[in-house]
């Protein structure tokens, strides 16, 4: 063959060498750990909901690009070290007082995104007054409430949200409702206050639940711009260590038992009028 026969007809030369060319799958990254998380291992137990919820909050902060405008308030409990994992300015509050601390911050810096991160003892036992009054005042903050029905950090005592009959170190024969009362449904309770703007209860025990929780957190952060009241996102979490279960068993327990007392879903949503600007 002469050299001319390699030239193909047409205005432009086309490289047509199937032997020296292959098609490759083009991979794109579709999920990575958010850059707003500090690059360190987290101390939480294997399977703990806290690390998952930290990740979701930081994803929202990264996606909304509000790292510079966000201030968080950490509780006392297993997540007392939240400020070691979230790469934002944070304050460590005394046990139960996170909502009061957040009030101090938000009133002085109303344009910042302020959120508290609290467990069931912090928010519903020792801190119930501060929580209730912050919501009643309609503080424009987000309260992230991780409800795992026990006191985790102090090794598994009963919480205000412990299920009837649930065994904990201070209810060794199961929670006795006639002695201690029934578990408190914080979201329903607080949704009655006119200062609450968006109240929802979600979970993170399977991928779809995680997606819904992420959506709830995205909405809650967005709604802070409206200055119309408090957003409360209750997240049913697990505590594999103190429930004495594996993380997989704990996920099953949430599915079968926890959601009977704490049904998942939106409890109070803003009306369309309020959301018109979005």
């Amino acid at each position, binding site marked *: 063959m002469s050299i001319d026969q390699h030239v193909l007809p047409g205005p432009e030369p086309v490289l047509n060498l199937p032997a020296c060319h292959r098609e490759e799958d083009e991979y794109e990254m579709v999920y990575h750990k958010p850059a707003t998380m500090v690059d360190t291992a987290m101390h939480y137990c294997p399977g703990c909901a806290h690390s998952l919820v930290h990740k979701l909050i930081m994803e929202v902060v990264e996606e909304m690009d509000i790292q510079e405008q966000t201030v968080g308030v950490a509780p006392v409990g297993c997540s007392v070290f939240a400020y070691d994992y979230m*790469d934002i300015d*944070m304050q*460590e509050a*005394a046990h139960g*007082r996170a909502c009061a*601390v957040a009030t101090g911050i938000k009133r002085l810096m109303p344009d910042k995104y302020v959120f508290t991160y609290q467990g069931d003892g912090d928010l519903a036992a020792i801190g119930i007054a501060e929580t209730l009054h912050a919501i009643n005042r309609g503080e424009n903050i987000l309260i992230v409430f991780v409800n795992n029905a026990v006191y985790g950090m102090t090794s598994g005592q009963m919480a205000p949200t412990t299920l009837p009959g649930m065994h904990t170190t201070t209810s060794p024969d199961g929670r006795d409702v006639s002695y201690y009362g029934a578990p408190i449904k914080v979201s329903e309770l607080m949704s009655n206050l006119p200062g609450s703007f968006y109240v929802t209860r979600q979970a993170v025990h399977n991928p779809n639940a995680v997606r819904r929780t992420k959506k709830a957190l995205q909405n809650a952060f967005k709604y802070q711009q409206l200055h119309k009241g408090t957003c409360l996102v209750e997240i049913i979490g697990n505590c594999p260590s103190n429930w004495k279960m594996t993380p997989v068993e704990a996920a099953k327990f949430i599915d079968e038992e926890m959601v009977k007392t704490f049904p998942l879903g939106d409890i109070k949503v803003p009306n369309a009028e309020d959301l018109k600007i979005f």
Partner: protein
Amino acid sequence: MTEFKLMKGNEAMAEAAILAGCDAYFGYPITPQSEVLEYLAREMPKHNRIVMQAESEVASINMVYGAAGAGFRTMTSSSSPGISLMQEGISYIAGAELPCLIVNVNRAGPGLGTIQPGQGDYFQSTKGGGHGDYRMIVLAPASVQEMADFVYLGFDLAEKYRNPVLMLSDGAIGQMMEKVKFKPYTRPEVDKSGWATTGKPKTRKRNYITSLHILPEKMEEHNRHLEEKFKKIRENEVRFEEYNTADAEFLFVAYGLSARICQKAMDMARQKGIKIGLLRPITLYPYPYQRLNELASQVKLMLSVELNSGQMVEDVRLAVNGKVPVEFYGRMGGMMPTPEEIVHHLETLIQYHHVN
């Protein structure tokens, strides 16, 4: 505001807070200091500042923590039972090294007590009150003028040392009306960007406010750092006032309201020929140990007069270290001693100790 005004102590303190540039006041009503909250509820909004009646003193002190942590100038006030509720928050504020001003308008106790003035919170104010190794700078005003002046001083000291400052007033000074002149004041610029939580820009690492140092090595290091700070405070911030001590053979030691009464008692005793002076500590922490020790070489007897069962007298004894007898005269429950009874007690003591 350069002319004299006739004002109640609590309200003078509130006005001074506004002039000092206080960004936020969080409080709860309690007798005898509810006027502070009421005055500020009326006046702060006119200056676009924050004033909030919180749901309790516990919430108030934690709101102060939040605002102080974000770098703002903030204060709260209460009276003895409410200050007891704030102790947890104060310990956290001291541990996290946040500047703020707390005012205690002392009333008689313990427990619910009464609404009349007392000085029974001396131990609580100077020896801790809350848990752990920390101190507060304690300023003790003895007049309405000082209640106003010490607000400026308190804020400045708090920001200088990143420590809470307590103004220990009482129910009489808070409620009485005297003339007061508000000195002109410019709020100093303080760089808080190294620690205040204002939102993390790309140019710095995240700031976080905490008093938790779980590793013992780190906790001890932090405690030592706080001790260094208190050492500097003791070296530089002692304040007191002396009256007639140049030729004194005897000495009253009293602060606040009891110092006012002792001034009259001192004049009466002098007329009777007793050469007595008065040392009035202005800072109860840091306490003027050194000056009292010096005076102990000069006088024959010291008498501590307080509205409690004997609290500051222990510090006088520490200062004097056995050089001279230190006696105590006190009334409690809101009862106030008259200058006459103090002088009478002084005379009895002088005879008893054979120090004529």
